[in-house]
């Protein structure tokens, strides 16, 4: 699947600090966990083992889907700092 190869397919300049922060405590009461299936870069995953939503910012495509779908305010959402993050190009 395309998302499995995301780091081969997409060029990033990854900032050491995440541009989105997730408050996992807030997620505990979430009934839909839309971020885990709607994020096109699969940045959010549900961990059965730890019984919580895990988030990794590196593959983020900066679309904003998670920001609009999260209705519990669990996200502190920013675009990456100028010059960082995804950079679309032509092959």
């Amino acid at each position, binding site marked *: 699947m395309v998302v499995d190869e995301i780091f081969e397919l997409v060029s990033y300049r990854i900032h050491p600090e995440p541009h989105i922060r997730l408050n996992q405590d807030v997620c505990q009461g979430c009934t839909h966990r839309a971020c885990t299936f*709607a994020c096109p870069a699969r940045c959010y995953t549900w961990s059965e083992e730890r019984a919580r939503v895990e988030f990794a910012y590196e593959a983020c495509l900066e679309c904003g889907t998670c920001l*609009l*779908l999260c209705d519990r305010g669990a996200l502190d959402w920013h675009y990456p*700092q*100028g*010059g960082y993050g995804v950079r679309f190009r032509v092959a």
Partner: protein
Amino acid sequence: MPLATQKPLANGGRAGDAVDRGATPHGGASVGGGSSAGGFDAIVVGAGPAGTSAALGLAQKGAKVLLLERGEYPGAKNMFGGMMAYCPAPEQLVPGFWERAPWERAVTKRVLSIAGRESSTSLVFQARSGSERSSVGAGSSSDRSLTGFTLFRPIFDRWYAEQAVAAGVTLLTSCRAEGLLMRDGAVRGVRIAGGGGTAGGDDVVEAPLVIACDGALSLLAQEAGLHGGFKPDQVALGVRALYLLTEEDINERFGLAGREGATNEFLGCTEGIRGGGFVYTQTETLSIGLVMHLDSLKQKAIPPYELMERFVASTPVAPLLRGARLVEYSAHLLPEAGVRMTPRLSAAGLLVAGDAAGFCYTNGLTQEGMNMAMTSGLLAAKVGAEALAQGDFTAPRLAGYAKEMKRSFVLRDLRTFRRAIDFLHHDRLFEDYPRVVSALMEDVYRSDGRPRTKIARMGLRAVRGVVPIRQLIADAIRVGRAYLW
């Protein structure tokens, strides 16, 4: 490096220079050590088609303009289907625009396909054929009005911003606007990250006019209270995979000659999610993607990349991709709710243009956004230049922009197609009707030794059990009101 010393960025320097000399990610965009920098008549946030058009328009009227872009270069963050439909705005800003812009193919063939489980049905529109139009880019505007141009945003947006720099605009890349600078209830500039680049923004750039062209999330207009944040039922997520092929293979598979291009929209390929699929031809690449309304995506809970996997493997798409190599994957939001999402378009010291104002739509047949972004950017520049000439940036003065927009094709088209846009928010269109059309067409073409019936009866058979007749009639009237009268 204080902006004041970035002389080559302002008037003239070589365009490429200016783009490259934007603030580096390391240094952040420093505008004079924690204090404020001034001297600009206007700040435009976002070097997409809306922002660059606004900046160009203002610079041509002699204004000193700062254009901020968070990407390393304009276009680095931008993706679209896509085909830019013809519109006169960019020609007014860049002489010879349509001859000079770096487009990929001139679209002469538009296909609408309705995908069912066992089959798909297409409607093909073909503009006057091939060789006659080989100089399509240089044709007259009436010639071009049936055409659109496919292009790559990282190339196009960068080229377009270079035209703005050549016109005297100061472009600062790798610079993220953190928010607005407010004073006495008016927008008076933007906050940008300080030298360390920490979030929160400790530098400000002042100007009496700010034009927010920051795209579909529209965070600046939201901060100014012009809208309460776009909602999941007002926007869609677009995902796109880019495949590399040869020019010859593309021409052969789509029946094209030279630099002619084709677009193909698909309905019924989203497993009930409101939205659709698309295939667009570039010179030697294909853009293949899906657009999904966010509320519907949330409800159906199907990951976009899984849907994409099935779309590229589907009967109508797979043969187009034989031997092609996947080279990029991207995602972006797009406004989808037409006039229902139009925010207030101005406040004291602030104008909003492009996707940030929700000026992007599909009526199911065409997808438009770039032309609307450019046109709104141009009109924002017009009103902005008048405000500058009068030194009046009050809310009533800048409200003239909304009037200009109402007169333009942008808000008129959004109004004309408001019912079509509403209609595209009905789930039936994406699940039930594609099945009905496919079942009907399968009946039409099925030859199994049994006697055939006329189409109306086949139609009834196809509809039965999928859509109640009452519903069908109501929807037919809706379609009529949306598209026909």
